């Protein structure tokens, strides 16, 4: 919505009110009527743009698209040379010339310059460059008789200094999509009142509109009010200059008197109007009805749209003649020889208009207003205003009375507002009902004190947004000024009643633990491609797809965090960072019929090691990452975060991981994730070269093992002892199984079992490996006897021999 200050002044009582644009814009913005941009319009500042005549045009020697002109800019003066790029110039043209030193709109300064080797002493301007029209077609052509050298500000004197305010309105304030609406808001800010236009008086004419045409509105919910008026005996000409000037000042294109006047009144009142050429209405009846069968329809701009059931149509009998509230049809548009029109002023169901306009991508000046709500009373005023403008300027004949489907109009509603509630919401215990009444009266909203605490507020019909008490309270607070409400520190006991914050804190702790292990956090989109997931997710339980994704890249909710992480690794490797430790903590999504959202979200932590564990340095070469590195990271992570003892079993086939170099991780019987080197095939798909090891853990499952309570055991006061055992076992025997056997054959006196050496090859028989354990013995009560220890060692060795055919290495 754009409003020129001069136009605005037409509707303010104090016309000499000085409106400093910046100050006014700030005040409006702080009252919720947001001004997004202030621009100069009109011809002030065009003093050094003068009338010139083109004497000669030559081709530019160095540029095909440019021409070199000689332009005289004073009577009998010598021509000045100006380089020009426009096509629509000819010798003898009278044109605007910006002399060096001129500052054109957009802070563009004209200087003496050399353009591709040719000197240029100014600029021949288009209307757009001068900020006086939207026409970008080419150089502005001035009247032939204009006096050379005269400044444009004098030549175009009628459009003197003006400023354009561009508003960014909130969707509830449809009433402000009009000069009048803005004027209402401005009035209290500059201490004046609105100057309402006088109600129009019409004499009844011998022919009433209803004697020529009838209007049918079967469903008033679609169209609460329809005012139809016939106007005849006029010619389609240019609109009066003052109307054209106003329209141009807000960047509207002028077409002809009927179009321009209906546009003018729409901008003035915010009520869209439409004129049908009455000749083209064949049935003698205008019907407002819902579209019943899909069909094509040609709009007045030539565009063919597909109508669908639910669209509101204006019909001539059964033939659509307008897409209600959005745009008229080509079949009934006003033409050069039109002499009689049917002027439509109506209100339509806002949701329907919005739905249709959105579907067809037709956001017109009209639909923008209708979808925010146009009130029924303004509609009648707009119809009258347009009729008078046409009548007065062209001696046209206005049929009276019009057809009106809501002759009573709409009446004002009353809303009772409790001052205690006003005070409670604003936080101002001393805010009186008089203050509230004063505040509202600035906008012309009357109120009456009903009792000590209750005021009754009379809501103007055009304020369709004020529906209940809280809407009025907002209005009071807004007009009073949020800046005048003092800040106050709240008091509450809410914090004593704690809720479970673990769903937030546990993932945060996981992030901290991973950062501590040297991983860098990434954040990726929650959606990815189908293909990515196919290659990386083990479970086949339903993936969730978006119905309206932005692109295939973002079409499916992630069931694993690994693909994004690997892609980021590849991205960074291509940017010369081959060695990385990355992680992400985020949700995985799976379909679930159990939930009210049809989805199960599980908080996951995924980590990745790529390249070498550390960078090659001056002292050592980095080790290529492997299973044991990433497993070590997982173990440290779990130890930091939980009390649980994880076990690692060879991974059941997982498409993302190397079959023999990966493990599933369990706590007891609960699977909590997978760790390992990635499958070369997976890396190839994601174009991630070199070795990558990764893990993905279910944080929600881990949450119940959170390290929170520790039961302390005091260290033994008696010295312990150690004993090393090295055995030969089958190559396939796992360290875990061997350890379990040792544990089973020892007693509580064995307080530690660790693997300290593993080797194969030389000196070890084929198919066997040597594995060495260190056993720690200690008792909290006494120093152990050598015999006790050796007895236990023997039991362990026997156990290993029995269970794993282990032989002792000497």
């Amino acid at each position, binding site marked *: 919505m754009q409003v020129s200050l001069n136009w605005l002044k037409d509707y303010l009582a104090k016309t000499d009110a000085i409106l400093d644009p910046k100050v006014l814009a700030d005040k409006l913005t702080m009252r919720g009527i947001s001004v997004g941009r202030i621009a100069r319009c009109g011809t002030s500042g065009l003093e050094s743009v003068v009338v010139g005549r083109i004497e000669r045009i030559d081709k530019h020697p160095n540029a095909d698209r440019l021409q070199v002109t000689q332009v005289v800019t004073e009577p009998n003066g010598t021509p000045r040379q100006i380089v020009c790029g426009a096509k629509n110039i000819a010798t003898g043209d009278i044109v605007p010339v910006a002399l060096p030193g001129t500052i054109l709109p957009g802070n563009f300064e004209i200087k003496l310059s050399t353009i591709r080797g040719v000197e240029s002493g100014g600029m021949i301007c288009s209307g757009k460059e001068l900020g006086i029209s939207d026409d970008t077609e080419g150089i502005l052509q001035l009247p032939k008789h204009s006096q050379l050298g005269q400044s444009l500000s004098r030549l175009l004197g009628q459009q003197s200094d003006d400023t354009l305010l561009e508003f960014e309105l909130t969707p509830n304030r449809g009433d402000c999509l009009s000069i009048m609406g803005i004027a209402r808001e401005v009035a209290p800010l500059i201490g004046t009142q609105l100057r309402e236009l006088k109600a129009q008086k019409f004499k009844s004419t011998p022919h009433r509109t209803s004697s020529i045409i009838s209007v049918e509105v079967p469903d008033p919910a679609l169209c609460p009010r329809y005012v139809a008026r016939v106007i005849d005996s006029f010619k389609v000409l240019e609109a009066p200059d003052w109307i054209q000037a106003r329209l141009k000042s807000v960047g509207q294109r002028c077409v002809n008197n009927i179009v321009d006047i209906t546009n003018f009144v729409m901008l003035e009142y915010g009520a869209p109007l439409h004129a049908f050429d009455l000749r083209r209405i064949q049935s003698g009846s205008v019907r407002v009805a819902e579209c019943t069968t899909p069909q094509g329809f040609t709009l007045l701009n030539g565009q063919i749209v597909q109508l669908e059931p639910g669209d509101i149509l204006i019909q001539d009998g059964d033939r659509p003649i307008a897409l209600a509230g959005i745009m008229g049809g080509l079949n009934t548009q006003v033409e050069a020889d039109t002499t009689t029109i049917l002027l439509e002023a109506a209100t339509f169901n806002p949701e329907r208009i919005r739905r249709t306009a959105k579907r067809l991508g037709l956001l017109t000046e009209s639909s923008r207003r209708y*979808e925010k709500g146009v009130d029924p009373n303004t509609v009648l005023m707009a119809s009258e205003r347009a009729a008078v403008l046409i009548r007065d300027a062209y001696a046209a004949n206005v049929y009276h009375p019009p057809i009106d489907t809501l002759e009573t109009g709409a009446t004002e509603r009353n809303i009772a507002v409790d001052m205690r509630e006003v005070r409670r919401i604003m936080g101002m215990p001393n805010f009186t009902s008089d203050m509230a009444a004063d505040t509202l009266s600035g906008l012309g909203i009357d109120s009456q004190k009903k009792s000590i605490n209750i005021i009754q507020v009379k809501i103007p019909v055009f304020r369709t947004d004020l529906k209940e008490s809280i809407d009025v309270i907002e209005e009071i607070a*807004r007009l009073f000024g949020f800046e005048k409400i003092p800040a106050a520190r709240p008091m509450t006991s809410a914090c004593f009643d704690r809720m479970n914050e673990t769903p937030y804190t546990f993932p945060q702790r996981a992030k901290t633990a991973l950062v501590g292990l040297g991983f*860098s956090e990434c954040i990726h*989109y929650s959606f990815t491609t189908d293909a990515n997931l196919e290659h990386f997710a083990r479970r086949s339980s339903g993936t969730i797809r978006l119905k309206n994704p932005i692109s295939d890249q973002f079409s499916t909710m992630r069931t694993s965090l690994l693909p994004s992480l690997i892609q980021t690794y590849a991205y*960074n490797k291509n940017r010369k960072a081959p060695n990385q430790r990355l992680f992400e903590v985020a949700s995985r999504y799976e379909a679930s019929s159990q939930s009210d*959202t049809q989805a199960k*979200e599980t908080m996951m932590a995924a980590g990745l090691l790529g390249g070498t564990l550390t960078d090659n340095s001056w002292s050592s070469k980095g080790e290529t990452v492997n299973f044991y590195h990433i497993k070590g990271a997982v173990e440290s992570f779990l130890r930091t975060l939980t009390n649980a003892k994880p076990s690692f079993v060879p991974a059941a086939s997982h498409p993302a991981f190397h079959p023999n170099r990966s493990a599933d991780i369990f706590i007891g019987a609960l699977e909590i994730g997978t760790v390992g080197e990635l499958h070369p095939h997976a890396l190839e798909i994601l174009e991630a070269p070199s070795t990558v090891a990764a893990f993905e853990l279910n944080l929600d499952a881990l949450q119940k093992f959170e390290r929170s309570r520790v039961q302390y055991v005091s260290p033994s006061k008696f010295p312990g002892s150690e004993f090393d055992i090295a055995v030969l076992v089958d190559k396939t025997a796992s360290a875990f199984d061997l350890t379990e056997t040792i544990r089973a054959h020892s007693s509580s006196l064995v307080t530690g079992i660790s693997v300290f050496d593993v080797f194969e090859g030389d000196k070890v028989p084929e198919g066997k490996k040597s594995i060495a354990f260190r056993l720690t013995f200690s008792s909290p009560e006494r120093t152990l006897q050598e015999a006790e220890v050796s007895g236990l060692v023997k039991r362990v060795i026997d156990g290993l021999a029995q269970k794993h055919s282990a032989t002792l290495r000497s």
Partner: protein
Amino acid sequence: MIDNIQRIQKEVGSELAKVSDLDSLEKLRVHYLGKKGIITSLMASLRDLDPERRREMGASLNSLKTDFEAQLDSRKRDMARVQLDKELTQSPKLDVTLPGQFPIATGSFHPITLVMEEMVEAMERIGYQVASGPEIENEFFNFEALNTPSDHPARDMQDTFYIDKGILLRSHTSPVQIRTMKDRQPPLQIISVGRVYRSDYDMTHTPMFHQMEGLFVEQSVSLADLKATLQYLVKQLFGNQPLRFRPSFFPFTEPSAEVDMRCILCKGAPKECRMCGSSGWLEIGGCGMVHPNVFRSVNYDPDRVTGFAFGMGIERISMLKYGIDDLRSFFENDYRMLEQF
């Protein structure tokens, strides 16, 4: 004999002072304490004395001996230290400017996490608690309960990602507030943070971003409380920056306001400010008093309680805090960005 002991004591003192290396020190020790040393001999001669004298002389002699031994030891340690220092000084010098070799790399938090945590901690300090909820939501929690009826523009397919009829990706973290209010009774002081989704992708929009929202419900919470709370939060994040509350419109709050912070670059005195577009103010969030219809939808009685709510984009705050100029860089995870945090 007592004279003899006193003389020896003096003599030992001056001798020790003269000694300058370990060899001479050893010689000195042998001279006095060796098998035929002076003190050893005197000790031996004690047995010729009568018992009373023997005890007396014995004590003196013993103290002479221990004294001497202690001094010997001390001189020995001093000399060894001097000797060691001399050797170390002559040993090869390290290049202390070579890079260190600790095997654990430095990890880093994503800037969004950093800001999120900063905001959460600030709010927790004044009593707020973190509530959580799903990202895949249904229309009731995301829209209807938030006074956004089905014909509201915000519900168009263009803005919200849909999964199925009535199921969508939450377009703000507000549904968490609805879920929490449905579960609990007032008073309530909660914040919700996390991923939110809107169907928009250009220079200034990504289809996923992060929000933090706060909700405070009590017997009579007011705009005045809201102002103080946001002033507090902004002060924690950016220091003492003036705020302004610009009336605005959101379906779920009334009155509603946009929160602007004085531009941190031009300090509100813009000539040509690239940060605030020369307006002097930076938009940092939206806020307002909870709409009575929202309370009704969770069975709170709007006559009994009032509440305020506010929301901020974490990317926006993060961009302002760290001077990040491209929204999309948050999700590229370029290591050259990550390693700066």
